[in-house]
């Protein structure tokens, strides 16, 4: 067999636009390129000179699927710059909002985007014809996530209620309590969904020597706060992330590639990384299910990302229920602040992994400089590394089948391409 290329022109069932290009020399892999051709939107440049209050509204527009993550990282970073501390109630409500986004985003990815790969369908909509109960259950879970973001954020896509210091208005007790019956149903449904996906036929494949990184917090499953932990046993203060990680531009992608400076190697963020590093902080039902399905303590099979998402949905339901039931809604809706020149950075756990924001503001509250490092651009290099190994497992003379299996692996990471450009279609070339 001579040299050849395999190309996926348009990666499907991912958020945003990209492709995959693979060049083979016989059975050896010459090159793998995850090609992100999503046009750059230049958010960091657009933010300069604007009032800092505009930032959560504008950065939400980086992504329609995970706007809450952009809002959370931005308000935390700006509050750090302004030296503002928020009340415990605001902090809990922010976790509640994040629960909504995880349920919505993971629910979408599990049922409509990823599960069809295991069951042999082109889409979740087509899968619904043979698996109506599972898809309808998934849509209902997704809807709960949206309802929660809608209640607290004012709108499911691009919420309007998040501001520096807290929220424009606190929800009423009636608005909060209304969700409880659905969430009680949803917790059980999420457990059933996760049992269902854990029974899928997973390829016997592990990421070679992958370093998993996520936030970690002594008292809680990581969402809005913590230090960064790695599966190599390192602890990194979020304030040092620019010293520890490096973004590099590559010609074939409008998204920047990230590596860890100390190892010169890629790393992986996201649900699998979070579960691997924080399993003991999962809610009781999620921990119980992780044990029941015998999930490895350090799971290195990227295809099992769907299980990690299921466990995080269970966690999100359980934590959301606790907050919905106990919410006393005391105090002010937001902390007040005075403008001061300063710099602030923050990382929170977006559905796809750790999302960094750093801002420099001036004494009049205007943005001088913005830096945003989304999880998908950080995961890209690891995805390419894994693909190189995966190809040897799936290579055949049927190029469409090889391309499809490569695309399956890419989808397992739930890449969010619009976010990362600031991606998917597979091309395989044999030369």
């Amino acid at each position, binding site marked *: 067999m001579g040299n050849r290329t395999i190309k996926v022109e*348009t*990666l*499907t*069932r*991912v958020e*945003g*636009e990209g492709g995959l290009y693979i060049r083979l020399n016989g059975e050896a892999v010459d090159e793998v390129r995850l090609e992100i*051709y*999503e*046009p*750059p*939107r*230049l*958010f*960091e*440049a*657009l933010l*300069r000179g*604007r*009032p800092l209050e*505009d930032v959560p*509204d504008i950065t939400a*527009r*980086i*992504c*329609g*699927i995970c*706007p809450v993550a952009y809002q959370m990282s931005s308000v935390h970073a700006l509050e750090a710059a302004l030296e503002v501390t928020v009340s415990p109630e605001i902090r809990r409500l922010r976790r509640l909002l994040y629960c909504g986004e995880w349920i919505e985003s993971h629910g*979408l990815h599990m049922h*409509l*985007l990823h599960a*069809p790969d295991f069951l042999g369908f*082109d*889409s979740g*909509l*087509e899968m*619904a014809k043979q698996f109506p109960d599972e*898809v309808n259950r998934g*849509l209902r879970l*997704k*809807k709960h996530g*949206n309802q929660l973001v809608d209640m607290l954020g*004012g*709108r*499911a*896509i*691009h919420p*309007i*209620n998040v501001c520096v210091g807290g929220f*424009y*208005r606190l929800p009423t007790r009636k608005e909060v309590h209304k969700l409880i019956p659905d969430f009680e149903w949803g917790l059980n449904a999420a457990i059933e969904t996760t049992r269902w996906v854990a029974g899928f036929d997973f390829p016997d494949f592990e990421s070679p020597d992958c370093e998993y990184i996520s936030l970690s917090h002594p008292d809680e499953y990581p969402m809005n706060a913590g230090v960064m932990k790695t599966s190599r046993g390192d602890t990194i203060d979020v304030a040092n992330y620019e010293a520890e990680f490096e973004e590099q*531009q*590559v*010609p074939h992608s*409008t998204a920047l590639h990230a590596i860890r400076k100390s190892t010169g190697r890629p790393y992986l963020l996201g649900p699998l990384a979070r579960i691997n590093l924080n399993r003991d902080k999962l809610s009781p039902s999620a921990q119980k299910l992780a044990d029941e399905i015998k999930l490895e303590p350090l799971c290195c099979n990227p295809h099992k990302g769907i299980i990690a998402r299921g466990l995080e949905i269970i966690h999100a339901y359980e934590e959301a229920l606790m907050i919905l039931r106990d919410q006393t809604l005391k105090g002010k*809706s937001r902390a007040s602040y005075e403008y001061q020149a300063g710099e602030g950075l923050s990382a929170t756990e977006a559905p796809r992994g750790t999302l960094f924001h750093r801002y420099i503001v001036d004494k009049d509250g205007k943005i001088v400089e913005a830096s945003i490092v989304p999880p998908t651009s950080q995961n890209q290099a690891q995805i390419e590394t894994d693909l190189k190994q995966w190809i040897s497992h799936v290579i055949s003379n049927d190029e469409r089948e090889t391309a*499809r299996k490569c*695309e399956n692996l890419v989808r397992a990471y739930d890449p969010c391409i*619009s976010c990362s450009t*600031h991606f998917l279609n597979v091309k395989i070339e044999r030369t």
Partner: protein
Amino acid sequence: MGKPKLGVFKFASCDGCQLSLLDAEDQLLAVAEAVDIVHFPEASSRLESGPYDIALIEGSITTPHDVERIQQIRGDSKFLMTIGACATAGGIQALRNGADTSEFMQAVYATPEYIQVLDQSTPIAEHVKVDFELRGCPINQYQLIEVIQSLLAGRTPRTPKHSVCLDCKRRGTVCVTVAQGIACLGPVTQSGCDAICPSYHRGCYGCYGPAAQPNLVSLSTQTLKTGVSPAEAAHRLQNFNVSAPAFHKESQRLTDQAREQN
């Protein structure tokens, strides 16, 4: 006749508007029954080429390749409808239109030469004929379902063009400008979001773009009286619909005013 063929296409955007279709959880499977979704990369690996009966277009045109792609999709489509502020007004990325795009690229990328972008982010209608524009950042999923249903039934879609103010009255939301002195774009912004922001005690920030016949000068005069500076008032119009003609014109006027004051 078979089911109408639906294609969903994306240009520069956040995916939020096409997500609105997937977020219509209660109607999604019914829509998937009523039409044949033949091209929707975000949701399906089945990608058929045209012709399409209905094309939904999200995102703005920002690259030379996308200029060619929209022409191709237009040629393949019977009814072409834009969804969202990016496709109808250029989106938030149109903030670079009056600025130096190459400087913006240098601010974000170490090697901007690898990436080809146009200086302007433009709406779809600047490149091809558009049959219907659905506004919003993001669009309203109920309006999207209404437009698809009306197309299937062969009637005119019912999407209102009145201002957000009327929706506040209907919801019983007390006017945030009158009662609290909060600057609000509600009087000049098209309805569609159900007037959410004032119900959360903040002013409308214009996600749906200009309402029919908006009196922007009058609103600016009122806004400046509440102590907002001309530069701030201009910024308020310069976001997701910055290139919508009415918002663009008034934000330019306010910017000039701010310059004169300095």
